[in-house]
């Protein structure tokens, strides 16, 4: 297969970027999209040009590092996969594929397709944790958790923090990500002590980092590689309302 790749090139955070078009010829249909970028980069390097900077790490869909917007869709055309799990068979032979970085104010572009998503780390630091006692590992069945609760918490725990939800949202809202964390930890007994503070603090930092508000359009759910459902946002709102009502003054 042959493709044209229309790729966003930007030297650094402060400079303005533009698209460059590259050819990728004799591509195997079962090559991954990132392997094609690797091949294009080899050619660029051999020609003495700057290779395309793009984020990737595990390349098996579990780390959340890869972050391209392919043909207008964060993580590309396939349902519930990350960019590193996109294969060339998903495209038409001869197609021009547009590749852009995530575009959101809280995710500044560092170079080409690489964005700085440390705003998510700040949100996690604000409340995405639980307090556990050190010492012996607890007995496996000492904390009974109903199957349905465990399943729902596990669904939420699937979030890999990739930021595609933000990239897809017209408001660059991080609500799907935050809702996944709040749901995951808030459903389990280990997450209860910090439950109220967690939703308040995470939302506070989310707002402070410059993410927009949720208008329930559902674009986030459509692109999430881990199928985090919109209903978790409603759950976050519910937790947030409860926590605001129960909040005590800081001094206590």
């Amino acid at each position, binding site marked *: 297969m042959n493709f044209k790749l229309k790729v966003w090139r930007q030297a650094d955070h402060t400079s303005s970027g533009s698209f460059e078009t590259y050819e990728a010829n004799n591509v195997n249909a079962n090559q991954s999209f990132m392997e094609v970028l690797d091949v294009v980069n080899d050619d660029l390097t051999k020609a003495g040009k700057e290779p395309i900077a793009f984020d990737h790490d595990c390349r098996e869909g579990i780390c959340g590092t890869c972050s391209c917007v392919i043909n207008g869709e964060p993580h590309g055309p396939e349902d519930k996969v990350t960019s590193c799990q996109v294969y060339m068979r998903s495209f038409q032979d001869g197609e021009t594929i547009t590749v852009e970085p995530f575009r959101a104010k*809280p995710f500044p572009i560092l170079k080409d397709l690489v964005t700085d998503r440390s705003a998510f780390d700040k949100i996690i630091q604000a409340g995405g944790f639980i307090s556990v006692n050190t010492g012996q590992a607890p007995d496996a069945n000492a904390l009974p958790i109903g199957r349905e609760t465990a399943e729902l918490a596990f669904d939420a725990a699937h979030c890999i923090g990739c930021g595609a939800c933000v990239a897809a949202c017209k408001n660059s809202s991080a609500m799907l990500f935050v809702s996944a964390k709040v749901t995951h930890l808030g459903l389990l007994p280990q997450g209860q002590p910090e439950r109220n503070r967690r939703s308040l603090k995470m939302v506070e930092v989310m707002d402070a980092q410059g993410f927009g508000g949720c208008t*329930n359009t559902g674009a986030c759910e459509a692109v999430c590689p881990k199928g985090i459902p919109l209903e978790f946002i409603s759950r976050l709102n519910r937790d947030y309302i409860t926590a605001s009502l129960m909040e005590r003054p800081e001094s206590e």
Partner: protein
Amino acid sequence: MILKRLFQSTIGKKILMAFTGVLLFGFVIIHMLGNWQVFAGAEALNDYAQLIQSKAFVLWGFRLGLLAVVALHLWAAITLTIANRAAAPEKYAESKTLGTTWASRSMTLSGCIVLGFIIFHLLHFTVRTVPGTPEYFQQDLKGRHDVYAMVVHAFQNPWLVGIYVVGVGLLSLHLSHGLQSMFRSLGWSDKRYLPLQMNLARIFAGLIFVGMSGVPLAIFFQLKDF
């Protein structure tokens, strides 16, 4: 502090919008039921209008309350829209709708047009300063303001009919997303209820469109002897 969170956080502002949105929705339903008096004839409509106007302090209390609700809804809409635009300043070269509806993406636009329509409507039938006719100030045989004559006269004009149909059309578009969004903003939605909530939103939006635009259309097309 709950108030601080309500007025400062993105979630809090959406709660305010949802809450004021429900109140406005309730008002629209009552308003629509009131409008249907026109089908019962001059006596019924003028009587109803007289009843509403009779207690100045109830009337003004209601008007001021409604104004406050609109102001809150508008304030939250404007501040959130500004923040949302600031959060996403750069558009994609290639953009896809990603499963979203036009109604959900255009809430600010539909809301602004609805606001324009509300102002026009107030100038038209309440303040009565839209260039019009003596009929607007006429009294009926019992000395009441002849609302019936005013309305029937107004909707002989195709332009006015057009403005009202488009105005309530955008209102129902706004509500087709707003009414389902509201459940989620208030934290009262999950996958068991979501399909029901989406259908309710569409049904009520449709009902409001038919019920509201039905009055000017029925008068214009003489569906009944007005």
